[in-house]
């Protein structure tokens, strides 16, 4: 007897649909967080906002346009998404800790949204772990992308805001990559449900 359409195991296409919904939310959250942060800086400030260094995930080779992305195999796409998500486990803790003392008028809103980000990220991670178990060994590989930025994002007010903003901009970009890879996977998996793709 089953309650709900699926029995024994949840189909991969269902899992990819749910994962895409979570990754969509994750990226949207990072976008509203970026706007919350920007609300404090005049537009000019944003343009000059320096990028202290490269994102800690920039060493991961990812496709950079549609043709390249559509040529990547399913298991490799999932492996890329998982690697990026895993790479943010520690830095999200840093973002969360530093959000509590961020010298920014929207500090409490930002702090709550970072917690929400962590929740969604954790849930998505659980889902991708289960998905990878169903999509072959290549999907299991996770590239190690250590975050060496430490827990401290700066002493003075300006460097704190700059580093926080930079870390968030990196997350925003990586969450968009994760979202894009999962949505391509989702449409490949739903050949039987064309109307959603």
């Amino acid at each position, binding site marked *: *007897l089953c309650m*709900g359409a*699926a029995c024994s195991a949840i189909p991969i296409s*269902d899992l990819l649909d*749910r994962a895409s919904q979570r990754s*969509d939310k994750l990226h949207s959250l990072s976008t509203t967080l970026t706007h919350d942060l920007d609300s404090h800086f005049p537009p000019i400030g944003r343009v000059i906002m320096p990028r202290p260094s490269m994102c800690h995930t920039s060493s991961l080779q990812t496709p950079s346009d549609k043709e390249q992305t559509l040529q990547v195999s399913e298991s490799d796409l999932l492996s890329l998404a998982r690697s990026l998500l895993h790479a943010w486990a520690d830095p999200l803790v840093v973002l969360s800790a530093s959000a509590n003392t961020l010298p920014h008028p929207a500090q409490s809103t930002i702090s709550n949204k970072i917690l929400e980000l962590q929740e969604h990220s954790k849930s998505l991670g*659980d889902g991708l772990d289960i*998905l990878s178990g169903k999509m072959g060994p290549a999907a299991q590989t996770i590239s190690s992308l250590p975050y060496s930025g430490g827990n401290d994002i700066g002493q003075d007010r300006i460097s704190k805001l700059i580093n926080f903003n930079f870390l968030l901009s990196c997350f925003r970009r990586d969450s968009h990559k994760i979202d894009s890879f999962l949505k391509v996977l989702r449409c490949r998996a739903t050949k039987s449900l064309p109307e959603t793709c």
Partner: protein
Amino acid sequence: GKRYGPPEKPALTRCRSPEKETFTCWWEPGSDGGLPTTHALYYRKESSETVYECPDYHTAGENSCFFNKNDTSIWVNYNITVVATNALGRAFSDPVDIDVVYIVKPNPPEKLMVTVMEDKGWPFLRVSWEPPHKADTRSGWITLIYELRVKLEEENDWEMHLAGQQKMFNIFSLRSGGKYLVEVRCKPDHGFWSEWSSTSYIKVPDYFHR
């Protein structure tokens, strides 16, 4: 003399989730064989042999098990069984497979508003509402459909209207001077109808000179 025996097997009757973040299951006990009988719910997650017991028998009341955020996953199926036990034996319910995403029963729609409007001299009711606040329909991932029911105060039968995904609806052919009750409910793609919203009352002005 009174006959004693092992309990009859219980039946898992219903599992519902309001927003895919928590869920609750209810069961119906069988006869207790004339002896004090206890019930326990056990579950196993898809592709895992570990058996867990219900984390919370209280939050959702009698003969129920509540799974909070940490206990709820949308990534795996739950295989659930209820066991009745008394001094003379045990009885197992049929096991049930649960996918949390498919047992959603949302909260009712909110901010139901009814206003009398007019179209070339004929009054009609403009009904509008909002989705339950927990349902993030704006992102385009969750689709809710709605249904209204309308009735005159003095009548028993409701008139049902399917409103699809709309969050507003016009009701025509009104009775002059009639006092109407309006309620709305919602349902996700793969899920169950919510309860009806609270009732909204509206009086249609007299527009017929009898």
